[in-house]
């Protein structure tokens, strides 16, 4: 029997935003080398779960715990969580005037030199950016595709052990989705055999389109702040496509 080492363990989590409970009874266990996908309609709490795992202060954990690499991170700052190996790709990251993409990349890759290392430069080219683009203020006037590529590029520089992707395929054309998926697969060790993978991920997606390009081991459907159903991604996705989220959930938890 293969024992999967757990990387992220979320037990009985409840989260409040502005004194309103958004998530409750969340149990989610992600093993080393596994990729999970989180599905759910708009407003079901997907982003809240994402921000709670990341530790943003607005998301108050009122119950339960989050264990990462065996350590309780429930009350750690975002910075400390990221330093432990959590990485994120945002759906709509803010533009920051005067802060260059270049500066972020260097810090993420722990470089202090004047120029970028050859390794980092290769990544830049892979993501179809050039030196001039790196001089731009991060996210300021970036197109939809550029935002996503910049997020993925930063993750490649950072090399986290657990990565959350918030809607990596939204607002991106087909060509970019393929490019992004390729790099997401790199980030998640997909080129390795399942037993040898070390990196884990959580894909948050509304439509599940990205799953045509990135394979997931397990899927969860979030409804009204609770995980309503978990299982095989292909099966769940098919149910969702056929019957919508409501239908899918009803099949898991028939209403008596």
């Amino acid at each position: 029997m293969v024992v999967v080492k757990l990387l992220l363990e979320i037990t009985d989590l409840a989260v409040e935003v502005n004194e309103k409970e958004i998530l409750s009874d969340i149990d989610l266990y992600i093993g080393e080398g596994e990729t999970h996908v989180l599905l759910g309609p708009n407003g079901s709490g997907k982003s809240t779960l994402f921000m709670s795992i990341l530790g943003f202060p607005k998301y108050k954990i009122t119950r339960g715990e989050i264990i990462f690499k065996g350590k309780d991170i429930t009350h750690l700052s975002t910075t400390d969580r990221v330093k432990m190996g959590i990485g994120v790709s945002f759906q709509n990251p803010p533009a920051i005037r005067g802060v260059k993409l270049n500066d972020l990349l260097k810090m993420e890759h722990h470089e202090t030199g004047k120029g970028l290392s050859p390794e980092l430069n290769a990544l830049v080219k892979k993501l179809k950016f050039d030196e001039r683009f790196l001089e731009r203020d991060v996210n300021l006037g970036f197109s939809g595709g550029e935002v996503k590529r910049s997020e993925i590029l930063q993750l490649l520089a950072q090399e986290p052990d657990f990565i959350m992707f918030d809607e990596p395929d939204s607002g991106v054309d087909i060509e970019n989705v393929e490019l992004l998926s390729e790099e997401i697969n790199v980030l998640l060790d997909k080129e390795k055999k399942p037993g040898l993978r070390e990196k884990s991920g959580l894909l948050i997606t509304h439509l599940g389109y990205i799953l045509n390009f990135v394979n997931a081991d397990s899927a969860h459907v979030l409804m009204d702040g609770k995980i309503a159903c978990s299982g095989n991604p292909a099966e769940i996705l098919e149910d969702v496509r056929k019957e919508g989220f409501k239908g899918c959930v009803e099949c898991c938890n028939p209403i008596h």
Partner: protein
Amino acid sequence: MLQSNTLKEKAKKAKEKKAALGKDIELEKFEREETGEHEEIESLEELPQKTKNSLLKVGVDPTGEGRVGSFMQLDQSKICSTCSSQNIEMMGIQQAMDKYNWLKDYMWNAVSVDTDKYTAEAALGEPGGYFIRSLPGTKEVFPIQACMFIGDQNVRQTAHNIVVAEENSELHIITGCSTGSDVQSALHIGVSEFYIKKGAKITFTMVHNWAEQVEVRPRTGIVLDDDATYINNYILTSPVKTIQSYPTAYCKGENSRVLFQSIMGGQKDSIMDTGTRAILTGKNSSAEMITRAVSKDQSQLYTRGHLAGQSQEVKGHLECMGLVLSDESMIYSVPELEGSATNLELSHEAAVGKIAEEEVLYLMSRGFTEEEAASMIVRGFLSMDITGLPPELAAETKRMLDLSLQGM
């Protein structure tokens, strides 16, 4: 240093006249020093290393590399004035007065001698300051540098600078003002008058780095002829006791254009009251003013702007963005628009606020600490793109700005 008795009389009458803005300073608390107190040197490289380091911080390069000339006033003494360019004349104001009889026609025309007690003091006290003139039809792409330095404790430094850009000439000036490391308090009064003739252009980039107990009262006027351009870049991010200045550009010429770009970083107990004013009388003349201000600690920042459109077809825009970083600090932004003719266009945009939390969180989610993230955002906010400079000077100015922002 006055030529006519009428001016002297006017100055004397203004000796006790308080300034319209800013804390009143008792001039007697600071000591006048004679012009010959410090010996002249051949080049800024002869200065002690400590002084050279201070100069570098305000953009004045003691090696003179990339500069066509250097001027330095230490307390009240002109200690250095060199210029290698055929296109520019530079000398101490006293020498210039001796050399050119016509110079008296320029004195106190852009700044009134009886503006307040500070202009009166500059007029009645020991002479100081520089004279810079670009010759007609010349274009010197390299900047000339000037430095006002306070080396003695409690000194009352005055300067009266005259800058003339003759017709169709181009002149770039970098000035740095600083104090010696063992000086705590002093007073600096600097009167600067700029005369920009037809088709000429001056860019003036100034970095201040005073000691924490220094009082600073610059008084500046700029007169622009037809098709003349003036670009003023001002950087002050280090602590100062008080500074109050309100440079005024008189766009008298047709199509004359002025651009003020200011970067203000308030720290400790600094009180900074800085404004920029443009009086637009020339047909189709225009003014643009951009200020970025950040207040930290207990600092108080007043950022003023005044656009006066006095004839048709003039344009002006004023922009001030401020970040208040501590509850004990303050930014008071006062934009004023005054239109007194039809068919003109004046506008302003001002916003004072806090650091956007989502920007901090974004950087934290990349592994920066909260403090690192905030300081990156503040530096980014202040490091605005300074426009209007030739490429080499733009790069140099960017370097100067980055250096100034390191302490923020």
